[in-house]
């Protein structure tokens, strides 16, 4: 029962990823794509959590945290790229 629910949830998350992928591909603007990628990352976090339950292992819990961190860093990087063209600035640029 639980397994079925979880697997259904997994499929739904994958579906959400697929939908976000559509946005990544379609755009039209860069921020659209950045947001979509962020969403994919966030959905992956959920998916990993579910897989951990399904496989009954704690081995992937770090991955969740890391993915959270990376999604965050990634979004910062993208938005800086979109906004300023560079992602790491020098002081003189301020």
């Amino acid at each position, binding site marked *: 029962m639980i397994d079925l629910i979880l*697997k259904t949830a*997994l*499929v739904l*998350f*994958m*579906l959400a*990823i*697929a939908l976000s*992928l559509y946005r*990544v*591909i379609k*755009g039209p603007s*860069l921020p659209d*794509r*950045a947001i979509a*990628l962020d969403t*994919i*990352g966030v959905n*992956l976090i959920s*998916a*990993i959590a579910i*897989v*951990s339950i399904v*496989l009954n*292992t704690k*081995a*992937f819990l*770090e*991955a969740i945290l*890391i*993915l959270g961190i*990376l999604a965050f*860093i*990634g979004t910062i*990087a*993208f938005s800086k*790229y979109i906004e300023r*063209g*560079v*992602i*790491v600035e020098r002081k003189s640029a301020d």
Partner: protein
Amino acid sequence: MIVVLSIVLPFLAAALIPFIYSRFKKVHLGWFVLVVPVVLFSILATYIPRVANGEVFVKTFEWIPSFGINITTYLDGLSMIFSLLITGVGSLVILYSIFYLSTKESLHHFYCYLLLFMGAMLGVVLSDNLMVLYVFWELTSVSSFLLIAFWHHRKASRAGARKAMTITVSGGVAMLAGFLMLYVASGTFSIREIVANLDVVQSSAYFVPAMCLVLLGAFTKSAQFPFHIWLPDAMEAPTPVSAYLHSATMVKAGIYLVARTTPIFGGHEVWFWAVSGVGLLTLFWGSFNAVKQFDLKALLAYSTISQLGLIMCLFGLGSAALHSGYSTESVIYTQATFAALFHLINHSTFKGALFMMVGIVDHEVGTRDIRRLGGLMSLMPFTFTIAVIGSASMAGLPPFNGFLSKEMFFTATLKITELDLFSLNSIGVLFPIIAWVASIFTFIYCVIIVMRTFFGKIQPDRLEKPPHEAPFGMLISPYILIAFVVGIFIFPNVLGHYILSPAMASIYPMFPSVEDMTPHIAAWHGYINTELIMTAGVILLGVLLYRVLKKWRPIYQLIPPSFTLNALYERVITSSENVSGRATNRYMNGNLTYYFVYIYVFFVALLAGYMIYADAFSWNPSKDSVIEPYELVLVFVMIMAAVAIIFAKQRITVVLLNGVLGYSVAFFFVVFRAPDLALTQLVVESVTTALFLLSFKYLPKLKNEYISKSWRFAKITISIAVGATVTLIGLAVMNYDRFEPISKYFEDSYNLAGGQNIVNTILGDFRAFDTMLEVVVLFIAGLGIYTLIKLKAKKGDADVESK
């Protein structure tokens, strides 16, 4: 021991030359060099009686014993002839050169090359080991290259040297292959041992190929048709070199090789026809072409070609003796061999003298063009004498040694027709006919040499210098040679007994005695035979034809210049260069995409091709694990993302989609129970994406790539083919379960390596070495990026280095 010394001494002397040259500036270097051949000749001469008694001198030094390559020196009758020629003519040429070459020339180079050459030649004729023989053989090519190119500021010298080197080294390579076949067939590189176990070699499949390859070496070196084309061009060398290399020694290395290998190959029909046929053809072609030359040296070059053909032909005829074995009827053939050896020596004497004569003319008058020469008889009487005697001998007139050997040649060609061997009874008649025709041309060009240079009107305005007789020193050497020309005619049997007979024994080692196989030489047999009539005919027709030379000269124009062998050679070279250039530039066009296409096409053709050919494909999904629906969706996501990358117009989309792929891969790592991988993949993918973004600051935006329909189709086809190949092999591989993975061992990681994370223990312990190197890779990349950014080419750098 003395034999070894003969090889080593010239090399040693060559090595000492720079030293002597810098010490004794005032004395002509030639005087020091002269010592070497004179000493060697004298020492060798003392061995003549013992060799004549059938003694041989063998000495072995180990060089590369592991591969059967040892320096075995071997002095027998055959080697003796050649050694004496090399050192004897060598002495005379060096003596001559002392007067010919002024001290302004770079004599140290000249004599160094000459000594190298002398040593190499002695090495060729005194080596028993085929490989060592080859070593010296190639050294003769190299040193003769250097000698021909001595005046390398002249374009013609360089061209001549290149041609000579290309052709002779090519022949040498073929010969090497032949030697290797002999080795594989017999198991030894020693000629003596091969001869001692002839059956093994002769019954081997390698026999005929080896023979042909060895002959290629011999023919190229001895300027046999159609490889003779290098010899006229080699006349760019200083005349002493021509006199030495291109009359007496190097060109005779091929003759030596034929003589030396006659015991092995002789008696075979192919050998007979190849050697005698090519010799005959060369004889004719050389003499025919000599007539049309205007440059005296070129004329002599063609004459040399022709004479070498003659000798070669005689050796070919003589080889038949080995077919019929030791019997009375073999005498006919052995006499041919005898004649060959005899003419070999005679040719060295008169041709050496003639070359020196031409050198004198050139040296004193400044030209060798017969159209500009004439009437020198009164001004240069001594030189004239050399020309007359040398030419007469060459033309086969008495009382000179050339007459004797020419007569014997006629005898051999005539006798050969009488026998029903190798279908000689039908086409054998060609031998005397062609020989006779060639002799007529020979006579004509001999007349030309004498008449056009020394008779007629002198044309002082067309000469470079006012003509006068040569200095005494320059005349010594040719006169010594002339003395031999006459002397041999008078005492031919001394030569026959001490020199020629022992050599016969080397060529027919299996014959119990060669005494009864060698003829007694006589100038007059006491009756008028066919040979004599032929000679008379040669003189008559020759004189006649010389008179009307202008009338028939146009036949030389019948062959258009573009159809000559020389033109053919040039055309082959240029067109192969051009074709190569075009072909290479076509596929090596600098466009990376093409290179990738080649690689992929090869990849698919080889792997898929072999898969199909060997029917190696199999697929059995029954053992697969189940596919969960969410996995299916993710696969779909990945495929969509991947395909979308192809169509993406913006670079950032491309990178984001690649990120999607990377994250999906990470998720698969989760699903497939690889936590460490998932973690690493996630971080690395993010950092990679960040790097892309960082670099985009400096990179251009994506352009719309215009590509033709056909190219797009080709790209798609290749891509699908590559993907399909990878998949097909992958599926088959998944099906292969013969072996247990070694990784079962690692499951005991806690006890073995004290860690519970198997992957980590593999990385940190079982395969820590990989990890260590991978850290190094990372470090190199980081440091590399640093240098790439910090070390920029300077603006002004013309960078020749990378033109």
